[in-house]
C-alpha cells in the first residue's frame, strides 16, 4: 500500500513535469514556425505574433530568475520571489483556513435547516458574482476601522473566493449519506450531532476534496488580486505589476512573477492532494 502510494506520487510528478515540458516545447515550436507578424482571421487578430517581444524564448523566461533583483541588495530575482511567495502563501493559507471554517460551517447549517439552505444559497451564489476589485476597497475600509493590519484584507478576500466551492461541495456531501445509514443511526437513538460527526462527515469527505482543490487555487488568486489592487503588500501580486513595468525592454521579465504565481497555486493544490491521501488512507484502513 505504501509502496503503491509512493509510486503513484512519483508517477504523478513525472507526468506533471512531462506536461510542463510539452507546454514549453509547444511554445517554442509555435515560435519557430508561426508567422512573425501574426495573422488575422476574418479581420480579427487572433494568431499571435512570434517575435521575441511578444513570445520570449522559454529559456529567457527562466533566465529572469537569475537576474540581480534591483533594490534588494545582492539578491537575485529568484530569492526575492521566494520571499514574496512565502509572504503570499501564508496569506493564502490563512484565507483558505478562514474560507474552510466559514464554508463548512455554512454547509452544516444548511444541512441542518432546510429553510436556511433555501434562503441562503441564492445569496451565496450572488456573492460570487461580485467582482473582487469592487469588494476590495470596502473590505480594506472595514479593516482600517477595526485597526487590523493590511494582510488581513488579503486573507479575507481569499476566504471570500474560497468558501463558496467548499460550502457547495460539503453541503452536497452531507446530503449524500445513504438513507439506510441515517435510519440505522436513528435506531441507535443517536442525536443529530453524533450522526453528523460519525456518519455525515465521513461520507462527505470524497465530495469535499474537489471543493477544497478549487478553494486552494482561488485563495491564491484572492491574495494576488488584493496585492495588485490595494497595495501595501509586497508579495507575488506586487511582483507581477512591478516586473510588468519592465516589459518594454525586458519582455520576459513578467514571466518570473507569473511562474511564481502558478507555483503557488500548485503548492496550495498539492497541500490539498496530500491531505486527501492522508484522509483517504486512514479511511481505507478503517473500512477494511
Amino acid at each position: 500500500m505504501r509502496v503503491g502510494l509512493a509510486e503513484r506520487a512519483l508517477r504523478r510528478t513525472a507526468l506533471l513535469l512531462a506536461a510542463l515540458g510539452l507546454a514549453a516545447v509547444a511554445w517554442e515550436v509555435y515560435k519557430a514556425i508561426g508567422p512573425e507578424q501574426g495573422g488575422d482571421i476574418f479581420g480579427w487578430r487572433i494568431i499571435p505574433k512570434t517575435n521575441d517581444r511578444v513570445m520570449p524564448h522559454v529559456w529567457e523566461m527562466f533566465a529572469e530568475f537569475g537576474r540581480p533583483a534591483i533594490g534588494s541588495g545582492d539578491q537575485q530575482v529568484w530569492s526575492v520571489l521566494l520571499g514574496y511567495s512565502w509572504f503570499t502563501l501564508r496569506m493564502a493559507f490563512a484565507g483558505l483556513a478562514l474560507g474552510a471554517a466559514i464554508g463548512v460551517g455554512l454547509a452544516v447549517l444548511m444541512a441542518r435547516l432546510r429553510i436556511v439552505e433555501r434562503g441562503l444559497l441564492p445569496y451565496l451564489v450572488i456573492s460570487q458574482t461580485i467582482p473582487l476589485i469592487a469588494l476590495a476597497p470596502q473590505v480594506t475600509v472595514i479593516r482600517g476601522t477595526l485597526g487590523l493590519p493590511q494582510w488581513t484584507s488579503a486573507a479575507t478576500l481569499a476566504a471570500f473566493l474560497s468558501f463558496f466551492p467548499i460550502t457547495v461541495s460539503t453541503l452536497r456531501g452531507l446530503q449524500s449519506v445513504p438513507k439506510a445509514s441515517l435510519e440505522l443511526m436513528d435506531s441507535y437513538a443517536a442525536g443529530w450531532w453524533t450522526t453528523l460527526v460519525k456518519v455525515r462527515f465521513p461520507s462527505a469527505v470524497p465530495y469535499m476534496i474537489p471543493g477544497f482543490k478549487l478553494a486552494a487555487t482561488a485563495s491564491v488568486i484572492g491574495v494576488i488580486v488584493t496585492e495588485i489592487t490595494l497595495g501595501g503588500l509586497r508579495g507575488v501580486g506586487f511582483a507581477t505589476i512591478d516586473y510588468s513595468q519592465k516589459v518594454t525592454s525586458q519582455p520576459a521579465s513578467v514571466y518570473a512573477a507569473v511562474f511564481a504565481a502558478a507555483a503557488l497555486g500548485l503548492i496550495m493544490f498539492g497541500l490539498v492532494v496530500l491531505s486527501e491521501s492522508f484522509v483517504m488512507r486512514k479511511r481505507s484502513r478503517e473500512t477494511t
Partner: protein
Amino acid sequence: MKRSITTITAGVCALALVAGACGSDDDAASDDTTVETAAPDDAGGDEAATDNGADAAAGDCETTDSVSLQLQWFTQAQFGGYYAAADQGFYADQCLDVEIKEGAVEIVPQAELASGNADFAIAWVPKALQTREAGADIVNIAQVFERSGTLQVSFADNGIESPADFEGKVIGNWGFGNEYEVFAAIGAAGLDPATDVELVGQQFDMIALLEGEIDAAEAMTYNEYAQVLEAVNPDTGELYQPEDFNVISYEEEGVGMLQDAIWADAGRLADDTEYRDAAVRFVAASLQGWAFCRDNVEQCATIVTEAGSTLGESHQQWMMNEVNKLIWPASGANIGLIDQAAWDQTVEISENTPNLDGATVLTGDPGDGAFTNDIVTEAVALLDGVDLVGSGYSPTEITLNEGGN
C-alpha cells in the same frame, strides 16, 4: 502589451487595467515602503518614518506630529522630494514624522485623503478636481510640478510631428482620466476625435508602439519615454536612440494640464489649527526635499531606491532628472505656487474637452476654494537659505542602459 503578448500576461494585466476609481485605505504597519516586507506583521518597515523619528528625538521639537502622505504609485523618483525630505531629516527638522504610503492599481490618492485615510495626497490636478466635484472636500496646497510631463511618442519615419499629423493615425492613450491632453490637442488641431483619428486604449508600457500596433503612444517624459530608449532595436542590435522617434510635448503644444500637486483636507485646514500648522511644515520640508533633489540628482535617486523602489539605476536617475525639469526653474516667486494662468488652462480643458464618450473631466467651475497659495507662502517663510527658485538650474545628461539598469 495587453493585446499583443500572451494570454497569461494579458489576464494578469487586465486586472491592472480594469481597476477603476475606488478608494481604500491603509494605515497599518505593513503598508511600509521598504522592500524588506517579508512578513505580514513586519512593524518596523517604514524606513522613512523611523529615520525621521530618530532625528526628531534628537532635535529641539517639543512634540512631533505624525502625518501620512499617499502617493499615486509605487516608490519611484517621481516622488523623490518626499523621500529625500524624510531621508535628509527635513521632516524631522519641521517636527514631523511622515509616513509615506505607496500607491497601487486601485489606490486613488485624493479619495484616500477625502476619506481620512491619509493626511496629504499627491494627485494630478484634473483628476483631483473631478473627485472634488464629486463631493470630496480637498484643496491643492502646493503645485509641485509646474509643467506637464505628457508626451506622444511615434517613430520618426511615421511623420507625426504635431497633433495635426494625428489625422488618420492610430493614437494610443491611457484612459482613466489620463487622456484629456490628447483630446485637447486633437481638438486644438481642428480634428474630430471621433472620425479623424483612431484612438485606442494603451497599456502603461510601450510594447504596442514598438510592435507597430499603434502609431503614437502616450508616454511620460520620466517613465515610458525612457522605457523605449532602454529597449534594443532589433534592426540595429543597439538601444533605440532619441532620433528614432518624434516626440510631441503637450506642454509645448499649449494643452498641458497641471500634474503632481500636494492636496490637503480643506475642512481640516479651516477648523483644525494643528493640522494647518502641520500642513505648512509638511509643504516646507517637502519643497526643501525637492530642492535637495535638484542639486543631488544621483543621491536622490539612490535614496528612492533604498526606500524600496525596484527600478533600474539609470532609469531611476533619468526619472529624477526629468522630474526636476518639470519643477525647475520656478517661473513664479518660488516652486509650489499655483500659477493662475496654468490653473485656468487646466480647468478650461477639464470643462470643455469631451472624450469619445462625450464626457468632460468637470461639469462646472471648481470655484475659488480648489487651491490656495497661503500654505506654500507660509511654508517658504519657514525655510531660510533654501533656493526655491532654481534660476540657475540646468538638467544633467543621463545615459540610459539596456533595461534601465
